[in-house]
């Protein structure tokens, strides 16, 4: 085995995994099957439940199609995406540097742990009434709720990320007299990225959920408000159409995140396609 890896490494040719076409087809088929099953269940529920509690899939999708032709629909989607993106941006710009800075110092990590654990267990919805009093049902109000809810996983993961400043790579850098600035930009940041990305992934999902929840509970403009408005006007197909839209948004955001992570962490063990070992 060793002689094998020796020879492949010196010629530079690594064994390439054979693409498994049949496996992929099977996976697509089972995925499609599960979707069909879910739609059938939905249809069954809509047929058996009392009228006006749940529209059928066809009715909902048709309504979604109608809505997609209106400007109000896209305004709501745009508003929700704007709040979500602004929230995620603030959480990242504040949470990552603050977390890394705290994690850099052992004392700072230990002394802040209790406060962060306390703050992150407060449900963001619990402070919603207060924020609503201050800002009213506005973009700013939802943004505050989103940031207060989503910043913790990002910040705490960044603290963990910085703890690997004590790793063997830090020792190696010290022994080769790598200047601190160079170490931070070329060794520390790339090394902390996997941890930071884990926090960002959790934070991204929380951002989207809280955006829609905040809009729904406060009446601030966006998809959440549309869901609430449809419910109040007993327009269940419209309500379900918007619920479906929020699910689609979630899928898109999550998918976008995964491809970004696959690119940024293509060197990380979780994404390695081939290895000589």
């Amino acid at each position, binding site marked *: 085995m060793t002689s094998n890896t020796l020879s492949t490494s010196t010629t530079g040719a690594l064994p390439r995994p054979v693409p498994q076409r049949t496996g992929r087809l099977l996976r697509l088929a089972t995925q499609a099957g599960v979707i069909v099953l879910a739609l059938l269940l939905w249809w069954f529920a809509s047929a058996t439940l009392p009228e006006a509690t749940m529209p059928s899939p066809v009715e909902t999708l048709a309504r979604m199609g109608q809505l997609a032709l209106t400007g109000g629909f896209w305004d709501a989607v745009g508003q929700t995406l704007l709040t979500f993106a602004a929230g995620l941006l603030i959480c990242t710009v504040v949470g990552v540097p603050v977390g890394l800075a705290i994690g850099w110092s052992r004392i700072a990590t230990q002394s802040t742990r209790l406060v962060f654990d306390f703050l992150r267990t407060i449900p963001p919805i619990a402070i919603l009434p207060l924020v609503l009093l201050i800002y009213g049902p506005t973009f700013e109000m939802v943004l505050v709720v989103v940031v207060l809810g989503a910043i913790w996983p990002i910040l705490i993961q960044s603290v963990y990320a910085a703890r690997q400043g004590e790793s063997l*790579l830090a020792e190696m850098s010290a022994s080769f007299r790598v200047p601190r600035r160079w170490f931070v930009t070329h060794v520390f940041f790339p090394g902390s990225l996997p941890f930071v990305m884990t926090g960002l992934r959790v934070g991204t999902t929380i951002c989207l959920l809280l955006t829609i929840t905040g809009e729904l509970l406060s009446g601030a403009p966006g998809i959440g408000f549309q869901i609430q408005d449809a419910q109040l006007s007993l327009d269940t197909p419209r309500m379900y159409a918007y619920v479906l839209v929020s699910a689609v948004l979630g899928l898109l955001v999550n998918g976008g995140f995964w491809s970004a992570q696959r690119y940024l962490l293509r*060197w990380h063990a979780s994404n390695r396609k081939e290895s000589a070992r």
Partner: protein
Amino acid sequence: MTITGSKKLQQAAGGNTDVALAARGLGHAYHGRNVLSSIDFEVRRGEFVCIVGPSGVGKTTLLRCLAGLQASTSGTVMIAGEPVTEPVPGVALVFQDYSRSLMPWASVLHNVTLPLRANGTSRAAAREEGLRALTLVGLDDVAAGMYPWQLSGGMQQRVAIARALAYNPALLLMDEPFASVDAYTRADLEDLMLRLQRELSLTVVLVTHDIDESVYLSDRVIALNGSPASVADIVEIPLGAERDQVGTKSTAEFAALRGRVHALIRGSRGSADATEARE
């Protein structure tokens, strides 16, 4: 900076004395418990010296003190006649754990050139030095473009050795460098180090728990003994410059030297066991 640093080091070492590295009354204690006590030895320029002792005797602590990564609690380390208080220029380190000492996000070449680039060498010059160092350890341009984790363990340790060579070290410190690879690869890497040391006139201090390895590689073996550890004896290894895994290791001379080092180390292990039994 590195180059001038190591030149200065060589000049200083060659100017008044031939000593590259010296430990004088070196001692270290963790939380009041002595691990190393009055360690004394000198390493001459162009010498291959192994420090051998059982696991847990404090070899890594000793090497960290020699590298300036850790301050000793007593005594001094002198490199090129200057006391060491932090990592000094011209001293390169190779770690046991190659997979954690190489950056997985950077190509093999970038790993090798990191110390040069960080210390101000231009991109082009660093690339040239890096490729030259990789050639010395038997890795080609294709391997240079790969990630370290695409290579086998032995190849990864070659990358770590190349990184140290590219640094143009006046002193090369190695901490159990072959302890994490299989026996066949280990033999290959041992022969690689013997060849490199001869061709580049390197000064190497290698820490190991493997007696065969220490005798096979060294001009002199420093055997550590006791708890806290101190130098039991320094054994000259007159096996000549040309050595090979089968021939050299089957000579009576090798067996005698091996036995001598073994006896020195068993002495220390015996007393360590006795201490443990009492506790």
